[in-house]
């Protein structure tokens, strides 16, 4: 925010909650609107992840495997090995998809979340300088961003359930648990009950997966915005009074503390998203 026109608290927070869109969105769902900022940062971070890992992959293949890994390659191999271990702990079959998917999710979501650690006003102010009215830099604080991930995982779950168990096997899984009986008639009574229970559970997966991530990161972002409010009211004029300096020091200390804590949260959230994805896809692959 430019120091010349100090915004009110409402304006400041509202500014940080508004996406850079092609046109204002009034209704909850409108597929003619697009968030440029979420798409831009998602693609940018995707390219960052895919590009850096691809360079390491090419180097790994080009340089003979006998040579010791160095620098960034060691880091990448550490992550790959760790993800591989996580997948093998949960899923015991063979799948060319689950492990790469888990790696993609962990790295991409981590990078999404990491955007939260940049100073809240840094990129929006730069964008304001080049004439963009709004900019939200954290894709995981956009419902579209998190649902884009969870719905894709959900679709993959459905696809692999059909592929591995067949339509009937999948249907049986949804209708024959948790209540079952040896008696055919009693079982027939249980089927609708089971279906309601299991279907809700099934549908709840992508929702909880997306909202858990969204809620945590959104809350973290709000804390940063609220901490920024400590010095917002005074602007540069605050530096002329002792209390203004005290507020700035308080803001710096609290923001630092929250950054450190948030560093833990963004890692844990990326990890949870990855593990749940592995679990869901493992369940889709395995019979119960």
């Amino acid at each position, binding site marked *: 925010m430019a120091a010349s026109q100090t915004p009110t608290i409402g304006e400041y927070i509202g500014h940080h909650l508004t996406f850079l869109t092609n046109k204002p969105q009034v209704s909850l769902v409108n*597929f003619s*609107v697009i968030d440029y900022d979420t798409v831009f940062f998602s693609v940018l971070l995707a390219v960052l992840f895919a590009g850096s890992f691809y360079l390491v992959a090419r180097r790994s293949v080009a340089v003979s495997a006998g040579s010791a890994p160095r620098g960034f390659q060691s880091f990448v191999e550490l992550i790959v090995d760790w993800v591989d271990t996580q997948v093998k702990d949960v899923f015991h079959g063979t799948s060319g998809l689950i492990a790469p998917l888990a790696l993609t999710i962990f790295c991409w979501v981590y990078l999404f979340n990491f955007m939260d650690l940049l100073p809240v006003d840094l990129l929006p102010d730069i964008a304001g300088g080049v004439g963009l009215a709004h900019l939200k830099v954290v894709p995981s604080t956009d419902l*579209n961003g998190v649902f884009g991930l969870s719905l*894709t995982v959900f679709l993959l779950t459905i696809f692999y359930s059909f592929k591995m168990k067949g339509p009937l096997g999948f249907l049986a899984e949804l209708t024959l648990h948790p209540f079952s009986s040896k008696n055919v008639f009693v079982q027939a009574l249980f089927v609708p009950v089971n279906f309601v229970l299991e279907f809700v559970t099934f549908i709840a997966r992508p929702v909880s997966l997306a909202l858990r991530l969204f809620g945590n990161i959104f809350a973290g972002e709000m804390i940063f915005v609220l901490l920024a409010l400590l010095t917002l009211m005074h602007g540069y004029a605050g530096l002329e009074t002792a209390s203004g300096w005290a507020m700035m020091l308080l803001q710096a200390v609290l923001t630092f503390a929250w950054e450190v804590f948030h560093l833990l949260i963004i890692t844990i959230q990326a990890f949870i998203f990855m593990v749940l994805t592995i679990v869901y896809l493992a369940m889709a692959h395995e019979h119960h």
Partner: protein
Amino acid sequence: MHINLTLIVQMLVFAVLIWFTMKFVWPMILGAMQERERRIAQGLAAADKGEEELRQARTGAESILREARDRAGAIIDQAQRRANEMVEEAKSAATQEGQRVLSAAQQQIGLEASKAREDLRRQVGEIAVAAAAKLLEREIDPRTHEALIHQLAAQI
């Protein structure tokens, strides 16, 4: 709080990213790691094998050395025995030869002595005949009395 086209775009980007990771990132990195793991395991196994072979070669060399030493000892023993035998043989041959020479000499001496005795007898016989002839002062035909002389000589 809204859902819009970004959702679809995000899903597409995500799908492409998954495909890219599946195709170009994960197999290469994990493959290289597993290849390295395999090589390290191979190297360690080769080192173990080399060590084992070295140990075997060492014990082999030791046994060969010991065998060679034993054989050399045996050869020396045999040579000494053979030398002793040769000395003994030479000694006994020399003794036999001496004995033989001695007995031949003794035989010769015996022969010479008996020959000398024979001559002496004959000469004594002749002297006796000459003495008898002198005593009888008559010529005794030696041819006529040869048998007598021989008889006398044999009696001496």
